[in-house]
């Protein structure tokens, strides 16, 4: 592959990184705190490509000047040193560089959405709470919840407390949960994905919805539900997925950070 092509690919890739980090869509793929690193690495790519392009232009001018000057002489001697180095690097023919086009096209043309219902269904019975079985065999006492009529909570916290809290702090509390709809057969869940680093390590967390008209809800529709966790519902039989009795439901837009971290 020619240097010019490599540089254009580098500009495209750096631009793609800058684009997703500046317009905020990068949270579909990675943790929010990676933003400064993404901006810096995008800028580095642009800078490296710019330096190389400027060098190429300068070298081409030198070459033209040298050729004009030494017409008839042996051209090998007139070759600027830099050109030898640069072309010497092309051995092994960086063919792998073509692959850089894939993320560029994926980001600019397709802009894949955040993971959703398909990913949750794909994980089978695996959820955040069921994963914790290995670490927390016995129930433990969780710190008390803050006071308030309606308490907004992370789904991961709700699932963990429902399964493992010895003080049953969720009982009788009205909670507000935000997540997307997952349909599995006749059951409807509100779900969220928890990520450690990037979407590749996403782990689902969900609660089964009870007692509301859920027929019209499609997969991946974001909703905010208010209601109460059914006491004792997150046990081994339910694979530690709590049931949630819904008293209020409204459709919402996708939140700015689709994952719980």
């Amino acid at each position, binding site marked *: 592959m020619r240097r010019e092509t490599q540089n254009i690919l580098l500009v495209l890739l750096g631009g793609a990184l800058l684009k997703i980090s500046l317009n905020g869509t990068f949270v579909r793929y990675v943790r929010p705190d990676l933003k400064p690193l993404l901006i810096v690495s995008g800028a580095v790519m642009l800078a490296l490509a710019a330096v190389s392009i400027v*060098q190429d232009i300068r070298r081409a001018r030198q070459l033209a000047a040298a050729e004009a000057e030494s017409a008839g002489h042996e051209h090998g001697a007139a070759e600027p040193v830099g050109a030898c180095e640069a072309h010497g690097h092309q051995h092994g023919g960086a063919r792998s560089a073509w692959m850089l086009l894939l993320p560029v096209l994926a980001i600019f043309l397709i802009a894949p959405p955040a993971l959703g219902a398909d990913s949750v269904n794909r994980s089978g019975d695996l959820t955040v709470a069921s994963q914790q079985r290995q670490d927390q065999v016995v129930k433990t006492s969780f710190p008390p919840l803050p006071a308030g009529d309606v308490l907004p909570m992370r789904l991961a916290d709700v699932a963990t407390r429902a399964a493992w809290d010895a003080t049953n702090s969720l009982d009788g509390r009205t909670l507000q949960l935000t997540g997307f709809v997952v349909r599995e057969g006749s059951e409807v869940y509100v779900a969220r994905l928890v990520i450690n680093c990037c979407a590749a390590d996403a782990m689902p967390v969900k609660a089964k919805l009870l007692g509301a008209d859920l027929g019209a809800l499609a997969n991946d529709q974001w909703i905010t539900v208010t209601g109460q966790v059914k006491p004792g519902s997150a046990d081994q039989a339910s694979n530690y997925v709590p049931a949630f009795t819904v008293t209020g439901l409204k459709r919402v837009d996708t939140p700015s950070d689709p994952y719980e971290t």
Partner: protein
Amino acid sequence: MTSTAEQAATVHERPPSRWRITSLEVLCALLVLALVGQQWLVGVLDVPALQTGATIFVAVTVQAMPFLVLGTLISGMIAAFVPASLLRRVLPRRAALAVPVAGLAGVALPGCECASVPVARRLMQQEVAPAVALAFLLAAPAVNPVVLVATAVAFPGAPEMVLARFLGSLLTAVVTGWLWARFGRAEWIAERALRKLPQATGGSRWAVFAETTRHDLVESGGFLVIGGLTTAVLQVLVPRQWLETLSGQLVLGIVVMALLAVILAICSEADAFVAASLSWLPLLPRLVFLVVGPAVDVKLIALQAGTFGRAFAARFAPLAFVVAIVCALLSGLLVLGGAR
């Protein structure tokens, strides 16, 4: 410098005025095609499984890119500003002693495995014993701070993985180096790998820095994309329940993870995140994955065959593979205290 003259000649052989199809035209054509076919492409990909795969692909690539940029920047700096003669001066004369020193030197020289191949080659050119350069080649991508920090970030619940990885990889490098010093033959390494290059001097150092960084980034970035693609395909195609059955079978899990490390060929700066995502496996098979990956994988074999010759790669890769598995298991038993 016949090679330089030849290269200069080939540059001139290309008639600048005549129309030829180069990679530049191919790239432009691809971009135009992609733009024209965007609607069609988006329609084709509007299948949940493909969308999940596309998201995971972009996620792995985007997540690893800053680490790759950091690694190539540092390796470019070393190529430009740390003369190999300095390294040679600080190394002990005897290869048996120099091997562990070179292994530890890998700690200070961060880079991903693709970047450490040219550095090892440069060391050999400066008449460092091949076994010593190879110990460095194996250690540098696996035990440097960038990789260890990435490992710590990827395994927030198991900080002992960092130590286990460090020990396992260092041991792999030293043992392989010693084995090579005892049994290795000079003629296995291609003659072209040992030919001397002109030393960079003065003002051109910044140019060497920029060019090395750019070249490493473009090349290893491509390999990283291949790794991201493989991860995405595997995550979508292989049912999690099936991989979960590995959690009950330790030996099978270790063998599969060692092979997976070779096939996935993920950069050492990003592999910890992939290992972390395979959370249904015990720590020991995942440690094997982290120790084998930087030592031997398909892209590394290709790079080494290109740099040192096929005869070298055919012997070095299987050796490193076996040594890495054994050392990872030893370190796992020592630090993790078993399978976990």
